[in-house]
């Protein structure tokens, strides 16, 4: 054997270890055991999976057939660079979240921790199997297990009706999506051969059926990813779930949908078409803007973060769409750039959104608050959480030298390859998507100034509850620090990731970036050629630090350094209260003004002689009224009509059978 040993059995063992840990949670060994031993074990499995995922991006694909499943329908597994990359994402984020969970669930009762432990690890394992699956059958089994496990995690606090309905909405959208995914595999299969991905790859589809497959996959996976107008479950389900689960769902689970899209369109279908790319770009741009504009309206921290997940999925789709357009027109190098940008942003979003959800969890744990308008000044009581949250906020705002900037930079670079395109209309449209991305990036920065400013800075807006607010516990900090480190590493050393993603893309499409891009050393990120564009975050950071240090030293040298601490200036009005600070809603006011027609706003203005005046505004999503509620009403109407058939009397049912039989005899002669 001269081929390198396959890592697939190890990956299988790791995924099964998660299952085993989950089952071990049911052992009657007490909550402390589940929390202190099983979650760290899960984190270790995550680390191992991340390491072998990173390694397998450099190895050839390997396959394995498991004698499980139905007779004549065994499970097929495959570990190729794309799966390796997503295992890296899953493992790395899961490691941080599991470590965090040790601290987060410390106040939970025994039975609940054990149940969460089971669902949580089954959820992780099912995601690993989604990534490893090499046939449609195992893929769908894992996909549904993932949906169910996350449903049960979302409804952890099922005593509250709001959470039950959030869970139901999630389950509904997940299943509509799963149906579309199933149909997509069915179309690709088209009645011949078996359901292994190899057979699906080999299937020859006409352009019409290939496009139908793509549309089904885009819709089905889009429901999981949260594309508009299928996003409605995200802002409901994410706040309902416990924070580590939100972090996993937003960081990893919706990324499996991106995995599915890439797998189906680039791998199984093969020849991507530029028309698909334009559709993906249009929906991606809409999703991006919609997500960030609604995020700016939120004052519930976790809802806000959920809307940002919608936005970031849009950004990933922009990269993916660009890639499809370039590949469709036969420009593989530019197409690779788009694909790499999309995958890089997938990983980056997993890391910083995981971090932000965990940070939100720490705030919730410490203060019991999710409402930004009640927070304020938390940097004093929770300095460690504030630091980690700030890093996440700067990263998601795409500020250099953190990781969010790198992937948005790559997406911009991909969009700037537009002059390559021959099609005049497409060539003029592509830069508009870059404009959308620019707008969304700036709006995100505004939103996170709002979040960090309102939650952590200033003064507390409400009197604190009894007892001092404690900062995040040690395991929580460990998880936060791990993901923070990820933000820095992915931001400062992007060249290594570029090489790995180039390898992933190469295994899918057979093309690669330019030689100049691949030969630049670890310090420089060069997407096409050094004369066109380059970026070196390390040098960038060093120069900023050097200048800041020089400035500090110089000021120290020449300045006496006397400082007085005084009250802030009150503008001659001494009766200032903390309620006079900007709230989250106030911060969004310019947006409501500029983008007013987008929102459905319900304002309540107090009368002039109201003794207890309260101003309130409710911003709603128009999608509910033109899409979801009509569909719900139609479904209710149809089921009430179908319900007429149910009379509850045996003779009527016998009559139905009789009529059916007659009918069949008439038609099937």
């Amino acid at each position: 054997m001269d081929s390198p040993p396959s890592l697939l059995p190890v990956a299988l063992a790791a995924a099964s270890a998660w299952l085993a840990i989950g089952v071990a949670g049911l052992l009657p060994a007490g909550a402390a055991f589940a929390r202190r031993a099983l979650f760290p074990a899960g984190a270790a499995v995550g680390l191992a999976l991340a390491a072998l995922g990173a390694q397998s991006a450099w190895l050839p694909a390997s396959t394995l057939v498991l004698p499980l499943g139905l007779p004549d329908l065994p499970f097929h597994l495959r570990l190729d660079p794309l799966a390796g990359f997503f295992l890296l994402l899953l493992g790395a984020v899961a490691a941080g979240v599991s470590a965090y969970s040790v601290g987060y669930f410390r106040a939970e009762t025994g039975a609940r921790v054990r149940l969460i432990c089971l669902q949580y690890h089954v959820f992780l394992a099912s995601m690993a199997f989604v990534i490893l699956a090499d046939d449609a059958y195992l893929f769908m089994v894992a996909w549904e297990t993932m949906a169910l496990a996350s449903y049960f995690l979302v409804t952890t606090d099922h005593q509250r009706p709001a959470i039950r309905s959030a869970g139901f909405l999630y389950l509904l959208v997940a299943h509509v999506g799963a149906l579309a995914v199933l149909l997509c595999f069915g179309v690709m299969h088209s009645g011949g051969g078996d359901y292994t991905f190899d057979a699906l790859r080999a299937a020859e589809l006409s352009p019409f059926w290939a496009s139908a497959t793509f549309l089904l996959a885009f819709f089905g996976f889009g429901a999981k990813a949260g594309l508009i107008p299928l996003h409605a479950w995200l802002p409901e389900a994410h706040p309902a779930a416990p924070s580590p689960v939100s972090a996993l769902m937003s960081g990893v689970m919706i990324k499996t949908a991106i995995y599915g899209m890439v797998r189906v369109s680039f791998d199984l279908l093969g020849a991507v078409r530029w028309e698909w790319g334009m559709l993906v770009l249009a929906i991606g741009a809409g999703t991006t803007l919609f997500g960030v504009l609604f995020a700016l309206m939120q004052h519930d921290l976790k809802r806000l973060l959920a809307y940002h997940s919608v936005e970031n999925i849009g950004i990933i789709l922009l990269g993916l769409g660009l890639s499809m357009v370039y590949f469709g027109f036969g420009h593989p190098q530019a197409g690779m750039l788009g694909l790499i940008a999309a995958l890089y942003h997938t990983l980056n979003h997993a890391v910083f959104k995981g971090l932000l959800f965990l940070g939100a969890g720490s705030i919730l744990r410490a203060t019991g608050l999710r409402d930004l308008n009640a927070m304020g000044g938390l940097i004093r009581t929770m300095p460690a959480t504030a630091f980690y949250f700030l890093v996440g906020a700067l990263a998601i705002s795409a500020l250099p030298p953190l990781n969010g900037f790198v992937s948005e930079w790559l997406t911009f670079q991909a969009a700037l390859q537009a002059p390559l395109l021959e099609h005049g209309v497409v060539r003029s449209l592509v830069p508009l998507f870059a404009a959308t991305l620019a707008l969304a990036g700036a709006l995100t920065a505004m939103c996170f100034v709002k979040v960090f400013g309102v939650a952590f800075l200033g003064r507390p807006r409400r009197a604190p509850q009894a007892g001092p607010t404690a900062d995040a516990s040690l395991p929580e900090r460990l998880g936060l620090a791990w993901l923070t480190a990820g933000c820095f590493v992915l931001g400062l050393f992007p060249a290594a990731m570029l090489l790995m993603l180039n390898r992933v893309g190469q295994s899918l499409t057979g093309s690669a970036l330019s030689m100049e891009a691949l030969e630049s050393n670890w310090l420089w990120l060069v997407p096409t050629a050094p004369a066109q564009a380059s970026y070196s975050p390390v040098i960038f950071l060093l120069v900023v630090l050097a200048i800041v240090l020089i400035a500090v030293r110089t000021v120290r040298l020449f300045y006496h350094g006397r400082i007085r601490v005084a009250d802030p200036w009150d503008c001659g009005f001494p009766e200032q209260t903390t309620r006079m600070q900007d709230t989250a809603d106030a911060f969004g006011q310019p947006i409501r003004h500029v983008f007013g027609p987008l929102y459905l706003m319900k304002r309540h203005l107090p009368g002039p002689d109201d003794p207890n005046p309260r101003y309130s505004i409710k911003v709603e999503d128009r999608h509910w009224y033109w899409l979801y509620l009509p569909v719900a009403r139609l479904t209710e109407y149809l089921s009430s009509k179908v319900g007429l058939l149910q009379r509850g009397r045996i003779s009527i049912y016998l009559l139905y059978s009789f009529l059916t039989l007659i009918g069949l005899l008439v038609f099937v002669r």
Partner: protein
Amino acid sequence: MSLLPAIAVQVLQSLLVVLAAPLVMGWVNICRAWLQNRSAPSIWLPYYTLAKLFHKDAVIANTTSPLFRITPYVLFGCMWLAAGIVPVLATDLPFAPAADIIALVGVFAMARVFSALAAMDTGTSFGGLGARREMMVGFLAEPAMLMALFTAAFISGSTQLPTIVETLAHREFAIHPSLAFAAVAFLMVLLSENARIPVDNPTTHLELTMIHEAMILEYSARHLALVEWAVAIKLVAYMTIGFALFLPWGIAPAGDWSALPLALAALCAKLALAGAGLAFLETLLAKMRIFLVAEFLSTAFLLGVLGMLILFLMRG
């Protein structure tokens, strides 16, 4: 490889921008005084102000966190860095490949985010008000700026400022109508990002109309000095970006040290003209209502997008 002289030019150039920035501010103030029939202050007044501020005791609000005290240094560092990326005198900058125009916009965004956060840190209503307005100006100005820069990037096929300058100034002479749109968009962004009339009034002391001044209301002494200095560097950095994109003549090409004196003279002339032009605009225009700023900047954004589209149509 003549790396050492190149680094020397790089350091000298950014030092020049940093040290001369208050002078440009002084020049703008003089021109404005002349145009408004007032007797002009000394051109060195900004330096005196900085020196005065560096001598005072700092007063820090008791509601603030360490972030408030770090921010002036971050602002100063970001602006200095920006001044280092832009080819002010020569295109042969060893640091320039580390950051392109997108990173440059990122640096300005970083500075904006930190100043807004510091403003919210004071926990007063003015801080929040200033931060909110600044971010509103920012989210409209940043994409407009990117569109103007992308137009130049599409023409030269690169996002590196030195390459853009070389393409636009030294290679071929072609008139790009799209650059005219980009230039107007850029000018509007320059006015709003630097808190000048008609978007903001840098000399205002009326709290309710302030944007930038409301954010730095709590700063005093050395912190205020650094913030003011950073503001001056930012203005010069924006002006020199404008020169690099729209008036790139005179900037010394790579490896040509003899062109440096000429480049310096050209830079002084351009800065003098730009400063006078800025004062002229500020004298002619009146400050807008805050929500007209949104329309002003969306016009800039649309102009930038139009410029880019025209470029593709002309080539089409």
